[in-house]
C-alpha cells in the first residue's frame, strides 16, 4: 500500500553531499514528497528529513540505499506514533482590511501568527503537523489565498534514541 514515510538522516557535510542524496532518489525512481536539510547539534553534520511515497518494500530499499551512501552516518525510519513532525507554512491572504475578521478568527483558532500585513494582504505564519496545515489552508480558501510557501516536514523520533 502506498503511503507517506518519513525518514531522517544524519549526514556529513562535504562537497556534493546533497547532490549525491537527491541523485540516489532520482536514479532509483523513488519519489520525494519533501526534502529538508539543516544544521544540527553536531558540527560539520546536517540532519535531513525526507518524506517518500511508496509501499513498505520501497521504504526498505530507500533506507538501505541511503545507508550505503558514504556521507550518510545514520538513517532513521520514523513511524507515526513515536515521532514529532512539523512543517511551517507562510500564506498570503489577499483580502481587504475591512474583511479580515473571519481570517483573524481562524488565525486565533489555529494559534497561527500574522507577522505582517499590507493594505492588500495579510501574511499568515503557521507551524504544525501536516494535517493541521492542510486544515488551515482549507479553512482559509474562501478568503482568497494569493500564495502559499511550505517548508515540508522536519521530524524527529521521540523514543527510539533512548
Amino acid at each position, binding site marked *: 500500500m502506498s503511503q507517506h514515510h518519513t525518514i531522517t538522516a544524519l549526514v556529513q557535510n562535504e*562537497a*556534493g553531499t546533497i*547532490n549525491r542524496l537527491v541523485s540516489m532518489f532520482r536514479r532509483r525512481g523513488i519519489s520525494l514528497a519533501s526534502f529538508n536539510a539543516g544544521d544540527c547539534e553536531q558540527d560539520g553534520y546536517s540532519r535531513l528529513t525526507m518524506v517518500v511515497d511508496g509501499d513498505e*518494500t520501497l521504504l526498505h*530499499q530507500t533506507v538501505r*540505499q541511503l545507508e550505503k551512501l*558514504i556521507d550518510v*552516518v545514520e538513517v532513521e525510519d520514523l513511524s507515526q506514533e513515536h515521532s514529532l513532525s512539523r512543517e511551517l507554512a507562510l500564506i498570503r491572504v489577499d483580502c481587504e482590511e475591512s474583511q479580515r475578521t473571519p481570517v483573524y478568527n481562524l488565525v486565533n483558532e489555529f494559534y497561527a501568527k500574522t507577522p505582517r500585513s499590507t493594505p492588500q494582504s495579510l501574511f499568515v505564519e503557521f507551524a504544525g503537523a501536516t494535517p493541521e496545515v492542510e486544515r488551515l489552508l482549507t479553512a482559509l480558501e474562501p478568503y482568497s489565498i494569493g500564495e502559499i510557501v511550505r517548508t515540508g516536514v522536519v521530524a524527529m523520533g521521540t523514543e527510539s534514541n533512548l
Partner: protein
Amino acid sequence: MRSGARIVMEALVREGVDTIFGYPGGVVLPLYDEMLNWPQVKHILVRHEQGAAHMADGYARVTNGVGVCLATSGPGATNLVTGIANAMMDSIPLVAITGNVNSWAIGKDAFQETDIQGITIPITKHNYLVTNVDDLPGVLAEAFYLANTGRKGPVLVDIPKDVFIAKTDAPFPTVVARRGYTIPGAPPKSQIDEVIKLIAESERPVIIAGQGILASGSSDLLKELAEKAHIPVINSLLGLGNFPRTHELSLGMMGMHGEAAATMAVQEADLVMGVGIRFDDRLTGDTKTFAPKAKIVHFDLDPSEVGKTVSPIAWVVGDLKLALESLVPQVEPKRHDAWVSQVKNWQARYPLHVPEGKFLSRTVLRALNEHTQGTAIVATDVGQHQMWTAQFYKIQQPYNWISSGGLGTMGFGFPAAMGAKCARPDDEVWAVVGDGGFQMTLQELQTAVEYGINVKICLLNNGYLGMVRQWQELFYDNRYSHVAMGSPDYGKLADAYGVRFFRCSRTEDLEETLKEAREHKGPVLCEFVVEMEENVYPMVPAGTNNSNVIMDPELPKQTAGANK
C-alpha cells in the same frame, strides 16, 4: 612541506600500486612532472582514457586489488566515464584520479572545466573534489580504503591544478575510519543456523556462486561447502572461476545464455543458495517464475541487495568469508546422489554443442580451451563471443576471468586484458573479442606494442554485431537493421602497428594458429573468420520464464527431444 602532486605519488606507493594507466593534459602537468621522480610506479600511456579505466579494471580483477587510472580535466575525465560505470556495475575497486581547473576557476566554465564529480555521482561508490591540499592525504587514503572494502567499487578523486602545486605538511592518517561507514563483519549466528537447517532439510539444493566469492577470497570455502553437503554449483557470469569448471559438481553458468542443465536445476531445486550474487535479471529471467519450487537463501554483504529483485526466505548478511568459515564446519555431511545424477542427466541430454563441418566461433573457443586447459587469464568483450567464451572456456582458477557483466561494455575486453597482463606478466592472457567491440578500442594496440604488453587477441570476426543480429533474427523477423559491419584488413592493421598477425578461416589451420600465437613472445592478433550467422544457445528470451529454455535447434535429435 611537499606538494599535492608528490602526495598523490606517495599515496600510490603506500597502497602498493606498481602500475597506473593514464593520459596527461594541462591541469595534471604538475603530477606528470612529479611522476618522473617515482620510477617504482609504472605509468602506461594509453591511447584513449576509456582504455585506461578498463585496464585498471582488468588489473583489479586479476589481483583482487585496486586499479588506478588517471586523466586530465574536461574531455579526459569524461572519457573515463564508461570505464567507471563499468566498474560500478561490477563492484570493481578502482581509484580514478582526475585533474580539474584551478580551484578559483571552478564554476566559471573555465577552459576544459567539467563537473566530473557531479557526472560520476551515480556511477561511483564515492567521489571527492579536493579544494584544500591539507585534505589530500586523508582523502587519498580514504579513497583506496572505500574502493577496496565492503561492497567494492570505483572512487573518483578530482584534484584542481593548484592543489597539485600547493604544499602541506599534513600527514597520511595512520588508520582510516569514517563515521557511519562500517565494513560488514560476521553475520549473526541465527542466520547461519537457519541455513544449516535448510541445507539439512533439502533434497534438491543448488548453489549459485557469484563474484562475491572472488571479492571475499572464499573460493576454497565454496568448494568445501559444495563437496561436504554435495551441492551442485552454478555460476553467475562474473562468478566464473570461483569454482573449478571441470569439477563434477560444476554446472557452469546459468541464465539467459547459461547451460540448460544449470538453468533447469534452479527451476527444479527445492533450495537455491545465492552466494555473492545479486540475482540480476539476466540470471533470473522473469522473477515471478524464477526457482518456483525453491526456498531461496541469499548471502550478500550489502543489505540493500537482499529482497531487491527476488524474495528470499532466509538471508545471511555480512562478510561472505566469515559467513562460510562459520557455516562450513557446522554443515552436516550429506549426499544428494539422486538429485546430482538427475542434473548430470540433463547435462548429458542438453550439452553445449559444436556442430562439426563448419568453422564456428564455438569451434575456435573449444580449441582455445583445449590448448590452454582453461588455465589462461581470459578477458572477453561483449556480444555472442562473450557468451560462447563463458560456455566453452572452462576457467579453472579464481581471478582468471574478466568480463563486463553489469554494464555490458563493448570495447572493454582488449584493454582489460592488457591491464591484467600488466598485473600478472607471467601469466598467459587472452582477449576474446568480436569485430564490433574490437573496433571500439583497438587503438590500444599501439600501447601494447610500445610497452610490450604480451596479450593474445582472439578476434572472432563474424562480420556482424552478432548478438544484435541474433535478436533481430529471432525477435524482429529476420529484419537486419544496421548490424552488418565491415572491418579493416586486420592483417594490414596489425602490420601497421607492428603486431604479429594470424588469419585463420578453416578448422584445419586452427591447431597451428593457436600453437604459433601462444609461442610468439609479444602481442598477437589472431583473426578467426568464422561463420557469419551463428546463434548463441541455449537462450531464455529477456524477462521470460527460465523454464522455457530454447535449446540449440542443431542439437542432434536423440538429445534434443525435450526442446520445449
